């Protein structure tokens, strides 16, 4: 095997909870297993940087199991392109290699959804999840005035974490109304992983962070950086808060680019899989967020099922079908509970940037019929993020569909395209 060619029976893309669980499960067979991860670290977004102090017990547990299993880990490696069935082009900082597989598990996680509103491009306006990740990595927070706004349990988790790390969390603004939340809160306990929610509310109250429901951000103020934010409530009242940082959470969306490239069926924004986590494409499996955003429990279970399924351990996989169903039920309720209100779709003004890579404004997009013409005439979605942010935003704002992905999946060097071998070894 040359430097530019590697072959594994099982290749897992992504070393987050789903990918780690899949690797652990698949390693209980005689098959060779490789995990490729684009970050320098494992654990995905949830358990990033697995230093003992910051990672929850489940994370430490799975990191330990993952480390002990025989799977071959390749970090800082991103999938560039799919050359043929069973053949990926993968790039690392130093070089590129052809990765051949018999079966593939996509465990590529989700990203935050961003909703454009005036001022959202200012430095120090973050995704709430992004802010949480940066905080975990040591982003300076001491004494910083922070507002966390948007929707979902993540707001509370982020608020509490930032508070612990020395930030002055001025307000957690949840766009969902209290009435809706109460109904949600009452529904949850029947479903299992629900305690989390009460724990979070409780914790935020204990920490003295005001939790306001029925508020959402309508404008971020500042010139070269954030200076304040205007929040609004359903009755039209507005509230200006002077702050240094704003974390916005509008939910998560699955990473579908690789699945699209491989030709997997996508249904309602998720990768369609069967009970074995197998996609519509032969050899290709999918676990975790891309099959439906559902968090850690779901990712771990689906990862294991996929790992067992690809290595012909059906009994072990079948034993997890029940627990998986519970996490799916939980996902459904969560999504209903925190559905985004329509007002969030009408926040942009004509000069609000929608595509941040190419600085395309809402006014420019008003002249376009769909994502395709937007790409063609305004370059919306044609920048380095390859439309990851604006395709979701324009879907929410205008109902536009993104149907296909053009390679590479992530930007790769010209040289890497030279290195790709076309003949299968």
């Amino acid at each position, binding site marked *: 095997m040359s430097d530019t060619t590697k072959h594994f029976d099982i290749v897992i893309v992504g070393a987050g909870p789903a990918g780690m669980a899949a690797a652990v499960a698949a390693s209980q067979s005689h098959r060779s297993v490789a995990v490729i991860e684009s970050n320098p670290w494992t654990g995905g977004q949830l358990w990033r940087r697995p230093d003992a102090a910051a990672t929850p017990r489940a994370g430490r547990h799975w990191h330990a199991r993952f480390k002990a299993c025989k799977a071959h880990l390749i970090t800082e490696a991103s999938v560039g392109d799919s050359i043929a069935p069973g053949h990926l082009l993968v790039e690392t900082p130093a070089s590129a290699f052809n990765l051949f597989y018999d079966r593939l598990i996509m465990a590529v996680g989700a990203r935050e959804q961003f909703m454009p509103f005036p001022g959202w*491009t200012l*430095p120090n306006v973050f995704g709430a999840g992004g802010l949480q990740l940066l905080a975990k990595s040591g982003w300076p927070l001491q004494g910083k005035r922070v507002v966390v706004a948007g929707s979902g349990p993540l707001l509370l988790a982020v608020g509490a974490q930032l508070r612990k790390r020395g930030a002055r969390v001025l307000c957690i603004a949840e766009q969902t109304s209290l009435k809706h939340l109460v109904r949600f809160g009452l529904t949850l306990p029947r479903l299992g992983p629900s305690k989390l929610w009460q724990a979070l509310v409780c914790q935020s109250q204990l920490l003295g962070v005001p939790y306001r429901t029925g508020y959402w951000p309508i404008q971020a103020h500042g010139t070269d950086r954030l200076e304040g934010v205007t929040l609004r409530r359903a009755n039209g009242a507005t509230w200006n808060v002077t702050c240094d940082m704003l974390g916005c959470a509008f939910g998560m969306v699955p990473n579908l680019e690789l699945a699209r490239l491989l030709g997997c069926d996508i249904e309602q924004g998720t990768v369609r899989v069967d009970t074995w986590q197998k996609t519509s494409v032969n050899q290709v499996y999918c676990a975790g967020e891309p099959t439906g955003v559902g968090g850690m429990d779901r990712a771990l279970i689906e990862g294991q099922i996929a790992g067992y399924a690809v290595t012909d351990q059906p009994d072990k996989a079948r034993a997890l079908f029940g627990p998986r169903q519970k996490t799916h039920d939980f996902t459904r309720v969560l999504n209903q509970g925190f559905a985004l209100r329509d007002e969030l779709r009408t926040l942009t003004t004509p000069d609000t940037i929608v595509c941040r890579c190419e600085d395309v404004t809402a006014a420019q997009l008003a002249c376009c019929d769909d994502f395709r013409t937007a790409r063609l005439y305004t370059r919306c979605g044609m920048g380095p*993020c390859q439309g990851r942010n604006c395709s979701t935003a324009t879907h929410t704002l205008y109902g536009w569909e993104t149907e296909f992905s053009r390679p590479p999946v992530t930007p790769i060097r010209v040289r890497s395209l030279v290195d790709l071998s076309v003949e299968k070894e």
Partner: protein
Amino acid sequence: MSKHLTLSVNGRSLTVPEGTVLAVALAEAGVTQFRRSVKGQARGPLCGMGICFECSVTIDGKLHQRSCQTLCQEGMEVTTDE
């Protein structure tokens, strides 16, 4: 005690613990504007997970490197769009 390393940010020297994410080091050094957009607007990190490219900086002469995905290295020369 953890090891420290020294890098250069816009020509100024900066010492950080080994294992520091570059975006964090830049924030510690007081950088808020990581890049300027196509139309010249100030931009900084947004997603923290390598998706948005808003935290892109120039590292050792290489343009468009995502600082949130990069660990600091000894002697690294970093420039942001000031």
